[in-house]
């Protein structure tokens, strides 16, 4: 078995046992999931994709897909990418990790679990420079619409700047894309499971054509999202990277709206209750499609590039080998 499959299988096993609904509920109330974090460090998941770990960047994104599939309430994208960017080997441990937010004027905001981070990095669009806060002090705590801890830091003037080779903003978008790809798969799986278990009018609702067609639409969107997410990962280190991330974040973001709507409809009132776990996935999907550039942002970025190439070059762009 190859390394990537081993990572995926092990992560699935650990998250199945240790990332359940009660943990997600507690995390949303502000309880940092320390036990789960310890498990992640014990299994070396905190260093996937870092130099010297024997794993590569593509493994990192494959792992993030699994995190998305389980709604892991930890800033895994931020931990793993900051390891790479700081380029000092693995910076995370049981007691330390770095998180990443958007740099906006004199603040860094939307920092997942920033309050627990021992380093905070700030990223701005269209720049390869990343601001590093080595002794962050949280200014304001908050959360996104999924209830994920998102905190704000004011710049102190003591930050240092590092240069990241591949667009850090695009890497963050790619991380969200893979989290979404995982979350979309989970939403489909929940929809299929619910449809087969729920009975109305004396039969399983999975036997109703209207429900079957809804889930067929969901499956098609989920399949497209997986393929789109993989394509952008494959473009790492190539001159198409930003274009492929643009297409991928936009396409996967588009799938989110369709899938969340349809899967909620299949779940009926039950899926609208807090007690059901569906919302832990759909709310994250809705949050992630807006973070690090929404569909409009990335579509316009890609569209501007294609328009500059000219109408007679667009086919050549689409008909890429990979």
């Amino acid at each position, binding site marked *: 078995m190859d390394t990537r499959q081993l990572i995926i299988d092990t992560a699935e096993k650990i998250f199945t046992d240790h990332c359940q609904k009660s943990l997600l509920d507690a995390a949303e109330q502000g309880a940092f999931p320390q036990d789960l974090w310890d498990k992640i460090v014990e299994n070396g998941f905190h260093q996937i994709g870092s130099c010297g770990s024997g794993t590569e960047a593509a493994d990192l994104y494959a792992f993030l897909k699994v995190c998305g599939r389980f709604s892991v309430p930890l800033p895994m994208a931020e931990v793993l990418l900051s390891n790479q960017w700081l380029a000092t080997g693995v910076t995370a441990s049981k007691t330390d990790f770095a998180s990443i937010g958007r740099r906006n004027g004199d603040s860094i905001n939307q920092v997942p679990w920033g309050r627990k981070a021992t380093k905070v990095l700030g990223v701005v669009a269209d720049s390869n420079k990343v601001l590093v806060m080595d002794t962050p002090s949280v200014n304001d705590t908050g959360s996104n619409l999924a209830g994920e801890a998102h905190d704000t830091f004011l710049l102190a003037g003591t930050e240092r700047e590092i240069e990241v080779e591949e667009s850090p903003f695009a890497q963050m978008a790619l991380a969200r894309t893979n989290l979404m790809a995982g979350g979309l798969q989970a939403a489909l799986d929940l929809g*299929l499971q619910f*449809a*087969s278990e729920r009975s109305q009018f004396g039969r399983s609702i*999975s*036997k109703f*054509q209207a*429900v*079957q*067609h809804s*889930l*067929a*639409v969901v*499956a*098609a*969107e989920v*399949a*497209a999202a*997986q*393929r*789109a997410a*993989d*394509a952008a990962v*494959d473009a790492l280190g190539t001159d198409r990277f930003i274009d*492929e991330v*643009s*297409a*991928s974040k*936009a*396409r996967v973001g*588009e799938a989110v709206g369709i899938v969340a709507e349809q899967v909620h409809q299949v779940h009926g009132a039950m899926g609208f209750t807090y007690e059901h776990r569906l919302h832990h996935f759909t709310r994250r999907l809705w949050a992630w499609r807006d973070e690090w550039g929404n*569909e*409009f942002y*990335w*579509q*316009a*970025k*890609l*569209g*501007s590039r*294609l*328009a*500059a190439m*000219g*109408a*007679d070059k*667009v*086919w050549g*762009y*689409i*008909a*890429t*080998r*990979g």
Partner: protein
Amino acid sequence: MLQFDRVTLDSGSEVLRQRVRDFIADNQHHMPQPNSDFVTGHDSEFSAKLGEQGWIGMTWPSEFGGGEQSNFERLVVTEELLAAGAPVSAHWIADRQSGPLLLRFGTPEQRERYLPGIASGQSYFSIGMSEPDTGSDLASVRTTAVAEGDAYRINGTKIWTTDAHRNHYIICLVRTEAPSENRHAGFSQIIVDLKNDGAKVRPISNMAGGEDFNEVVFEDVLVPKDRIVGEPGNGWQQVTSELAYERSGPERFLSAFRVFVEMVRICGDKPSPHQAAAIGRLASHFTTLRRMSISVAGMLEQGKDVGVEAALVKELGNNFEKVLPEVARLVVPDLSQLDPVKHKLFRDTFEETLLLSPSFTLRGGTREILRGVIARGLGLR
């Protein structure tokens, strides 16, 4: 779980791609108004030229005029021709569907007799499935073929038959046995020579002004017994596998491609944010659908059953083909106010494609049928 593997085209395919592009550049006179819809553009001279290049029947054995090439190479040729808006409809069905059907189920004599003509781009086929009372419910087909000595006597009507008035043959799904409790039993496929067997062909115009539809009437049409494709009674199995060939190719998401090209042209090199987003949105779908189609070609290459995956690509692709003109028309505030000379191609291409678009989610299996196939693949039925 449905899986669309990462498949990369090899460098050989890219050499071929350049050859196709050069060929298209040399044959621009065959495409005065490019259209990426595979049913539009009937040009037997162009089809014969493709046959000469070895670009029809590409994956078939050489003894039948085939090229013994991979599904990837075939995909490269197909997508380049469609993207350029080349006239491919004459040979399209024969190449994609009838040929592979004969190759898989036909008798040795049938393969020898029909395949070389298809591969040379000179022999064209129609599909004889739909009837006046038979659309998606193929098992309700009523046309009969009754054995009489060395012949079959055919009676019935096929309808919405593309190009029956100019194609050479039609492969009909017929009842060779009376209906029984098993509604899928008793069918056969039979080849009728449209020029010589006495079937009556009447044209049906479509709403886009096209005249490729026909009604084909069989009144005591006698054909020799050896026209039955493969085994008598095997029709249902054959026809369902035939439909799988036609579902995941580039023609299922590229039909509106030329509208996209002209839309990019009209937006210019400095598009507004709205225009840029419209272009980027469509491009993100194109690249994704194309990769999914290539994944399915990879599965075909490995001899896997692609029924569900192909249906899924068609479902996504056909919906996208219909969304594309809707997005394209909104990059300008008012189509009717565009410069009639400068922007003629955009308007003409848009209008032609919009008028064709209802057919996109009907032909080759309706949206409803495809969603049923996907649902079965998901274990829901």
